[in-house]
Each structure stands twice: as structure tokens, then as C-alpha cells.
């Protein structure tokens, strides 16, 4: 194994190789302060407004793929071997505007203009993937972009018109694709990247391991190292909480953690699989999670954030854990001394404490396939429908046989210090008829399972009442389909 003390990436059409990179330097600060590429804006510094949206291309398991990301919470060190595309890259040699830009101008898609470069980049990523998007696809692509001026309507109109201004096959990301692939391929060296640079509180060091073995060795030899995959949470530790996280191990680029294996009985997901990458498998095998999935973060966060990270960070709310726990998922942790597997629900011990030794990392999540006769649903309630953190997230997996409930796994996030099973509710359901009366009788059991907290996302009273009502919704949705029981946005996501 050779060590490399530099990172290398493409920035638009330039090759960058740097050794003096700090672990906590963000891509946004690098672009604006060091490169004076000021088209990328800072709006919130926490991945919630999208003004800093850029595209990042990477040689993944399926070849070169570009995704929109938030530059404000993307650490520069994690970009080793990537192609970073900023708003400045859309400039044509002849000064003409890119089709996305021209559509935005002609449809009056900008007012103050500050969110606009980020919106152009999100629409660019969408257009490259889907040249004729539906309203729902456009809304989904813009979930991570705030605009405070326009009310979005002209932006939606612009997004639908882009293809009348040009063809994706003429785009530089298509015409120069082979060149980019060749460059990124040439950089693949299986080396362990080890970079150190001085920061405001002393030296900062980061590693980019190429293999799980390297990762395991690093964790064994660097106690307290911070493992960073998508950085959608750790980015805020640094930007908002001023936390020192060095040494850092960036694993977002490790293809070995991005495998998805499907057998007849189960789906095994590498910890580095992003929310976006999981979508096709989720749609096929766990379609009931679909609605939740499109409400996790915005597109940029789903492109960066990983299922493994969502579990490992131990959020009391979690977006994926309640659904995964109800499905009976297991977790495999790995260290230099081997692997161990445990039920996901046992991983969350109490608030802020998980069953992970400091030298272990989450390697895979295994989710049993759903069986006929079992009913599933995952519901999320939040103040704003999209790109908001759940007030309550409830996951139901209930088996019904001959109109009797034989098994029930009900898990809630946002109701306790960890994602937690509703044991009393489950007991009140099992071996009871699948009936309105059973559901009504089980509702009070929520009070035994949860004593939720008050915060800005909801009062304890609201959380408890809506959790009970979600059980009612679950029943009505499966047993009494004569009336609508949920709001469906007519332009809903693809």
C-alpha cells in the first residue's frame, strides 16, 4: 500500500492537485475564497437552502455519475478523484447562455438572483438526467433549493422549457465525458490518501482510504477518528457547532461500501449507499418507503447522505431507521478484529449512545424482503412537507392472517431519545382481530410506549396524538379504502 499526501480532482476544466488541504475546509470556501469562483453562493451554510449547489461527478460502481451537492457541507478532502462542476463551467466560449440559463432568463426565473446559480445547477442536474421532466420531477429536484422572491412558479415554467433551448447531447458533460473518465481512471491508484495541514486550532489530518481494510486499520490506529460519508450531518458539526473532528476519514468515495446485493430473502446495502442510489431497489422491494424517501432532505442531501451514516449518527428521529427497524433489518459492524451483526433496533441504546466501538464502522445493512400477508407503511409528519426533519416518523409492519393480527412491528422516530419500537401498541394488536375496535383499543397504548418531548417541531401532545392517528390511518388505508385518507399532491414525485 502506497500513501499519497495529495488530493487530485478536476475543477471544471482544470486539474487540481493539492497537499495543503485541511480536513474541515469546505468546497464552498475553497471555491469562493481561494479560487474566487463567486458564482456559488453561501445562503445558510448547512445544506438547507441550495444557493451553493454544484455538481460532483465520480466514478462509482456504475461508471461516471454526476450529482448535485451542497458545496457548503462538502469537505474538499472528500473530492479526491472527483469532477467538480460549478456555475462558471456553464459559460460557453461564444458568450452564449447555457439552455438552462437562457430558459431561466426568458421565463423571469430570477428576481434577486442570489439563489439563482444554485437553482440553475439543480435544474442542470435534472435536465441532464431527464430532458423532459414532469412537474413532480421538477419539484423534487428543487426540494433542496429555497427561493424567497419568485414563489417558484416562473422557475417551474423555465424548467419545463429547457429542452427547447438545446439538447443534452451537445452539453460539455456529454461531449467531454470520455476525457473526464480517462482522467479520473488514470487517478485510480488504491493509495491511502493521508493529508495534513495547519488549521486554526492546530494541525488537521484526514485520510481517504481506498478499501475497507484500510478503513479498519485506520480506525484501529487512530482512536477517535471521525468517519465521514456524506457529511450532511458532520458538515453542521463543523460549520455550526465549531467541533474539532480531526483526524477525519472520508469514505464517501469508497466503491466497496456502495454495493447493493439482492437475494430472494433479503437486500444487503453497503453503508456508503446514498439515499439516491438506493431508490431503484427501494421502489422494487420496499415501495411503501417511497413516500418517505422523497421527503428526506432535498435532492442534494439525498445525493450526499448515506443510509449507513443515517444510522451511525444515532439521530433520535432518523429518517430511515424506523422503517428499517420495522422491517427487521440487521446491521453489520466491522473492525480490524472482524465483523459482528446485530438487529438494528439494538444498535440504538439511548440518546447519543449507540452500540458501536470506536474502532468499528458500519459496513452493511441487511433488510429482509417483505412477505405476502404483511402490511407495511412508513409515515412522516413534518411542519413543511419536503426537506424538513420529522416531528414524528412512524413505521408499521403488521401481518394479518385470517383477519387476525399475527405479528406487529411498529417503530417511531421523534417520540423518544432513539428510534424506538412501540412495544405496548404491538402487544395490544397481536392475536387480535384486524378491526376498527382493535385499533381503537390499541391507541392508548402509545402513552405507555412514549413520553415525547416538546420542541419547535411539535409539542408532546401533538406528537402523541398524531402517532395514535397514524395507527388509525394505517388501518383505514389497508382495511377501508372507500375514502381518501391521505393527501396526494397531484403533481407528486416520480
Amino acid at each position, binding site marked *: 500500500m502506497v500513501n499519497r499526501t495529495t488530493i487530485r480532482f478536476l475543477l471544471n476544466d482544470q486539474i487540481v492537485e493539492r497537499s495543503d488541504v485541511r480536513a474541515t475546509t469546505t468546497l464552498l470556501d475553497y471555491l469562493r475564497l481561494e479560487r*474566487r469562483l*463567486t*458564482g456559488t*453562493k*453561501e445562503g*445558510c*451554510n*448547512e445544506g*438547507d*437552502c441550495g*444557493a451553493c449547489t454544484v455538481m460532483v461527478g465520480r466514478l462509482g460502481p456504475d461508471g461516471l455519475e454526476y450529482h448535485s451537492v451542497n458545496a457548503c457541507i462538502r469537505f474538499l478532502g472528500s473530492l479526491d478523484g472527483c469532477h467538480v462542476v*460549478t*456555475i*462558471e463551467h*456553464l459559460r460557453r466560449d461564444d458568450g452564449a*447562455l447555457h439552455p438552462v*440559463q437562457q430558459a*431561466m*432568463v426568458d421565463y423571469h*426565473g*430570477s*428576481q*434577486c*438572483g*442570489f*439563489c*439563482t*446559480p444554485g437553482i440553475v445547477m439543480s435544474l442542470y442536474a435534472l435536465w441532464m438526467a431527464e430532458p423532459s421532466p414532469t412537474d413532480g420531477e421538477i*419539484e423534487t429536484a428543487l*426540494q433542496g433549493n*429555497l*427561493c*424567497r*422572491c*419568485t*414563489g*417558484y*412558479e*416562473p422557475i417551474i415554467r423555465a424548467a419545463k422549457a429547457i429542452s427547447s433551448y438545446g439538447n443534452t447531447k451537445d452539453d460539455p458533460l456529454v461531449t467531454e465525458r470520455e476525457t473526464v473518465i480517462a482522467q479520473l481512471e488514470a487517478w485510480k491508484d488504491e493509495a491511502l490518501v493521508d493529508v495534513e495541514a495547519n488549521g*486554526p*486550532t492546530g494541525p488537521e489530518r484526514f485520510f481517504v482510504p481506498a478499501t475497507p481494510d484500510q478503513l479498519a486499520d485506520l480506525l484501529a490506529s487512530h482512536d477517535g477518528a471521525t468517519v465521514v460519508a456524506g457529511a450532511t450531518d458532520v458538515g453542521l458539526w463543523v460549520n*455550526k457547532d465549531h467541533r474539532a473532528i480531526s483526524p477525519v476519514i472520508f469514505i464517501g468515495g469508497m466503491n466497496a461500501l456502495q454495493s447493493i446485493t439482492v437475494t430472494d430473502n433479503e437486500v444487503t446495502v453497503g453503508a456508503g449507499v446514498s439515499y439516491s442510489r438506493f431508490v431503484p431497489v427501494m421502489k422494487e422491494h420496499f415501495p411503501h418507503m417511497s413516500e418517505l424517501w422523497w421527503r428526506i432532505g432535498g435532492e442534494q442531501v439525498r445525493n450526499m447522505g448515506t443510509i449507513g451514516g443515517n444510522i451511525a449518527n444515532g439521530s433520535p428521529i432518523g429518517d430511515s431507521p424506523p422503517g428499517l427497524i420495522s422491517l427487521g433489518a440487521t446491521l453489520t459492524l466491522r473492525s480490524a478484529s472482524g465483523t459482528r451483526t446485530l438487529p438494528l433496533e439494538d444498535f440504538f441504546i439511548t440518546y447519543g449512545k449507540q452500540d458501536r466501538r470506536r474502532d468499528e464502522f458500519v459496513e452493511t445493512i441487511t433488510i429482509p424482503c417483505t412477505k405476502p400477508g404483511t402490511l407495511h407503511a412508513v409515515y412522516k*409528519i*413534518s*411542519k*413543511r*412537507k419536503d426537506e424538513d426533519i420529522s416531528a414524528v416518523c412512524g413505521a408499521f409492519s403488521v401481518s394479518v392472517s385470517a383477519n387476525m393480527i399475527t405479528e406487529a412491528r411498529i417503530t417511531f422516530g421523534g417520540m423518544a431519545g432513539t428510534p424506538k419500537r412501540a412495544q405496548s401498541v404491538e402487544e395490544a394488536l397481536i392475536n387480535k382481530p384486524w378491526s376498527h375496535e382493535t385499533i381503537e383499543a390499541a391507541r392508548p397504548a402509545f402513552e405507555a410506549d412514549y413520553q415525547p418531548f416538546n420542541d*419547535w417541531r*411539535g*409539542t408532546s*401532545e*401533538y406528537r402523541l*396524538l*398524531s402517532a395514535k*392517528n*397514524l395507527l388509525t390511518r394505517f388501518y383505514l388505508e389497508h382495511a377501508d379504502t372507500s*375514502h*381518501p385518507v*391521505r*393527501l396526494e399532491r397531484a403533481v407528486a414525485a416520480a
Partner: protein
Amino acid sequence: MNEHVTELREAIADIKGGVHQSIRHDSAHKHVTGEADYTDDVPTPVGTLHAYLGLSNCANGTIDTMDLSKVRSSLGVIDVLTAQDMPASNDISPTHLHDEPVLADGEVQFYGQPVFAVIAESRELARKAAQKAEITYDERPFAHSVDEARAANYPMVTKPLTLKRGDAPTALETATHRLQGRYEIGGQDHMYLEGHIALAIPGEDDDMLVYSSTQHPSEVQHMVGHVLGAPSAAVTVKVRRMGGGFGGKETQSNQFAAIAAVAARKHGVAVKIRPDRDDDMITTGKRHDFVVEYDVGYDAEGRIEAVQATFAARCGFSADLSGPVTDRALFHADNAYYYPNVLLQSEPIKTNTVSNTAFRGFGGPQGLIVAERIMEEVAYALGKDPLEVRRANFYDPVGAENARCVTPYHQTVTDNIIHTVVDELERDTDYQARRDAILAFNKTSPIIKKGIALTPVKFGISFTATWYNQAGALIHVYRDGSVHLNHGGTEMGQGLNTKVAQVVADVFQIDLARVSITATTTDKVPNTSATAASSGSDLNGMAAENAANQIKDRLIAFAANEYDTAPEAILFAGNEIQIGTKRIAFADLVDRAYMKRVHLSATGFYKTPDIHWDRDKGTGRPFYYFAYGAAVSEVSIDTLTGEYQVDQTDLLHDVGKSLNPAIDIGQVEGAFIQGMGWLTTEELWWDDTGRLRTHAPSTYKIPLASDRPIKFNTRLLQGSVNREKTIRRSKAVGEPPFMLAASVVEALSMAVASVADYKTCPKLDTPCTPERILMAVERMKPSA
């Protein structure tokens, strides 16, 4: 203009980009490429230092000990400034009440108040150092809400206002029917995408150049001079554009500019300050929350007989603009409705929260939605469609000269077109049939319920601080025929520069592309008013037209003399000047005029005529005219979770004869969505320590694209012409459509009311979060 010239005029092609045309925003091509420079994009001089604020973590108390040694010794720190370091004054109270320190001096009055400023080599180092302060406080009990402040006998931050017509107390006693209510209305953070920022560059002597993201460069200039002890003439404030303002940069920019300037003066180098988003939201004021108590008398038809109401506002620790904001709430407590007897009182009460400030509508929305609540309450009490009650109470239409046209502030409404607007919208949206269909749907749908509401808007245009209704402009015409335009308004996305340039292009009859739009700067146009109160194009458009006309008049006089032609036979059209039978290009005429020593530069000025206001008496004509609009919204709610969606919204809005329909439609759409956010998902939440916990987009939720009404139609009222002589007979557009969002609240209210067969008007405070909707649904259920 004689007939001959008129004929010629018709033969000449129109210019590109004159008034009443849909022209794109002048910076659109730079917005989309990222080339539009905001203050943070201005290249900084060598050696620029960075300032960052240190904030209090006590809501009310006296600073006991303040140990800043660890801040000073932190890496890269050059200096730490406290209140004592302000050279001439530590006060930046915009209304001169001396109640707003730059940095807290001994006393802290809200959690997050700036106490000191670190100056360091980089922003990151300054930010890190600011965390290291060790401050202890002698803490006192605090009051963060109106109710707590009332209970603690907190003072008013400024003098309250009373509006009175007739005898409301007596009329209430004798009213046919009577109801009382209490309405809590939430505040709102501006959440401009570009946060506050200032870059101060020191010059010779007292000179100080400040780049500031501000809607009010003249006030920043004044405050910087005041704090430094420098004359205003030495201070120049410059802003090319803001990444959104919405009122949040009317007074709130002062603090940042003052700190940057003080540090720049002290150290002789440029200093930049830009708070992180969370600190921006913690340290700057917001829309005022209100608690309104009302007492209403009405007859069997739902006609109002009397309204008595108190409007208490969470003002925060200082006055800032709370006086005029609470005044404007009272000015709009009638919305479009005539109140025969009325007594309205404001209660601008002090609280231990950040000092609240201007925000699009400026208190007007809080007043207006109370009127809408009252109409709903009366309608439910009588079992009527709320639209019927609204109609019964409209001010009489244009032309009527009776008492039913007189507002609570004794101004007669002479331009009322609300009947036309509402009738047209009701018809075009098929309101009645859709309402019937919803009533039928709700009968058969146990979980999902729908609602629909049509609400009107009447909004008064002019600053109620009458002296603010003035503007200046500066125009230079160069020898090549290019035109340099500068005016006192600021560009924050609203398209002001585009509109004013269209006016100038129209005066000279040259293509818009030949008019250069330039940064607002206090050394070109002095003593400007804030770009606020929707007044930007009304005031600055007129001032620029005035300046352009002066130059045009000189050119006409020159041409008349030069070509021995009557001035009446000279016409500017299509980039040319018709002089009798001769045509000459604009640039050629300009160049010839220059050679004959014609003055090609002019300052323009405008003041709004006919307005006056006596606050002590509560009478006058504070508004030059009114803007009107109406909205229909249809919503669905989930009665299990309180979640909802807006299924359809139709807006019809009056902008007079639009200067730029594309930009005006953008303003109407954007204002509606921003108003909808205020009334639905945008919630300010303080914890038990008095600390605001919703201070970033992760916790404070403004609307997304997917929150738009599923069907969203916006139209400008056709054929409308401002009855007053405004700039090309247009009307102001920035604020009035914000209040169209009241339709969403009342539609949600109807959906909630359906749970109990519309027998009672739901108590539904704002913002109507899913939680508030669910809890309102629960309250509608018969108690067990």
C-alpha cells in the same frame, strides 16, 4: 404635439424596452451565470480584516463579569471591540429614541444580543474566537411574549396610536349582535437568501466607503457618521444589489456597517463583517407578532355596526420601526370594509426579544387578517357564506361620496374598485360552484376535508412618515448617446432598476440597452428614503423622469434653435429625433448639443403631492392612493395529522397601468407565496431560556416549490389606471399582494369548521402549522 408630428410618430418603430412592456430583469443574465456581484463578491483590498459578533446568552440582565482574554489571545485576533470602543456614539436607534446600542453596554435585553465584536485576520478565525468569551450575568426575569410583558408591566417602546370614528363603545352596547375574539398572529423571519454584510474601506481624513447590503443607504451613511463622529459628507454607502431585502435590510444593516466602519477606522484597513445564517437570524429583527383582541357589533345581514380592537405587538427590546409598523396595522385593520363606529388602539410593547422591524406590508398584513377573521366570525355566527358578509361591508364603490367611504383615519376612499375585482374573480374562478362542490365533498369524506375562501385586499400606498415620500435621481447623457442612470432606490430583486430605466428610455425614446443602470450610492443622490413601503418605482421613477425631462427639454430647446424649428415640431421617437421634416439619431443630436455647450446632466426630484397626516388627532390623508386585489384559495386538510395542501389559488391584482407586467406578475406570485409561508409553516419558536430556536432554514421552514398551490393562476387586473398622477399611472406592487395569502388561512379554517358542520368559526391562530390545524380539528369535536 401637433397633428403632423403625431403622424410621423406612427411611422417610427417603437423603442426596445419602453414603459408598459414585459422586459426581463436587467441583471437576469448575470443572475443565471453567477456573474452578478453581491457585497460578498466585491474584491477586498489587501489586508482586509474580518469582524464577527459575540452574542449574549442571557435574555435580560446586567453583565456581571466579562472576560474576553481568551478571545483576544485566540489565533489571528487583532482586536476586540466593546461598547466603549465606539468613537462618538454607541447608539443606532433609527427613530432617535436612543434605545438601540451598537453593542450592549452593561445591560443585555435579549438572548443573542451582540456584546462585543472580534476583529481577526480571517472570518473563520474571528468566528472561532467569538466563541471563547466568558461572560457572567446578573440575570433578571424576562418577558418574551406580549402576555408575559403585560403581566410584568413592561413599557411601550414608543407612543401608541388611537384611531377613532363614531362611538364604538356605545354602538357595541346597542348592537344587534356582538362577538369578541382574541387572535394571535405569528412573526416572520425575512430569510433573504443573502444575509447581512458590510465591507468598510477607510480613506483619507474622515472618509469611509461602506459596501452594505441595505435598503436604506442614506440611513447607513448617517449611522456610520454618527457612530464615528464623522460628517455624513465623509461617508459613502454603496449597494449594487441585495440578495433579497423584504424590509429586513431597512434598518438592520446599520449595526453591521457601524461595526465594520469603527474597526476600519481604528485599524486603518478594510474590514468586512458577515454573520453566519444562524447569527443573522438571531441578531436581526423580524415581522412583529401580534396579539389582537376585538369586540364587534353587527346586524342580521352581517353588516358591521362597530369594531373596537387592541393591537399588541411583540416589539422586542427597542423601538426600531415598531411605531410606524403598529400604526400601519391600525391603518389596515379595516382592509376593504367600512366600520361605522370604530376604536382601534395599538400597544407597541417591549419584550426581551430581538427588536422587530419592517417586513413587507409593515404591520399592514397583521391588521388586514384581523379584518378577515372578523368577517369569518360574523359569517359563521349568522350561518352565511363569508363572501356574502365581506361584500355587505365593502366600502362603497368609486364615485360615492358618503360616509361609507370614510376610513377609521378619516381619509375618504375615492378610488375603490374592490367590487369589480371581487366580482371578476368570483366569476372567473367559478367560486360559488366550487364552494358547493366542496360542501358536498366534505359530507362524504371523513378524513380529508376541503375548504375555499375568497379574500380581498386594499392597501394604502405612501410612507406614513410623510417626509419619506421624496426621491432624487441623477442622469448623465454622454456624447455617444449612452445614458447613465442613478437614483436613490435600491435593487433587491423587485426589478426597480429595470422599471426606472424603462421610464428613462421612454422619455428619451431610446432602447433600454442604452441606459446604464448603476449602483445606488449616497454620493450621487443624497438624502434618500428607504426603498420600502412599495414606493420604489413610484418615487424614483418620477424623480428619474423629472431628471430626464430636464435634459430632454434642453435638447429640444437646442434643436429648435439649431434647426430653426418650433419646439412643438420636435419629437423623440424610436431612437431618433424628428425635427420638423429632418430626422437625426439621438446620439448625433447629443453630440451636437455637447459641441454647443448644452448641459447634459441633471438631478431630478419628486415629492408625493396631496398627502398629510396628523398622528395626534388620528386624521388626515396618509395615503396617496390604494392598491386592490383578491384571491381565491382552495385547500385540503388531513384531519388525522393536520397536514394540508393548497389545491388551487387564483390571484387577481391591481397594479394600475403596469410599468412592466412580467415583473409585476413576479411580484404578485412571489408575495403570495411569501405571505402563505408567514401564515402556514414559518414559525418562530423560543425556548424556556428566551432563546430563539428556529434560526436557520433547517428549523425555520419557508415555502418550497412543492408548497405552491397545485394550480396557481395569477392575473393583473386589465384596464386599470391609477386615478392619481403616478408614474405612467402605475401602482405600487411590492407589498399589497402579500396579503392575498389570507385566503389560505380562511380556506383552512373552512376545512376545519367542516368537522362540526360549520356551526362555529374555528379558533385558528397563525401560523397554521399542521399541529395548529390538528388541534383546531380536535377542538371542533364534541367534548367527551
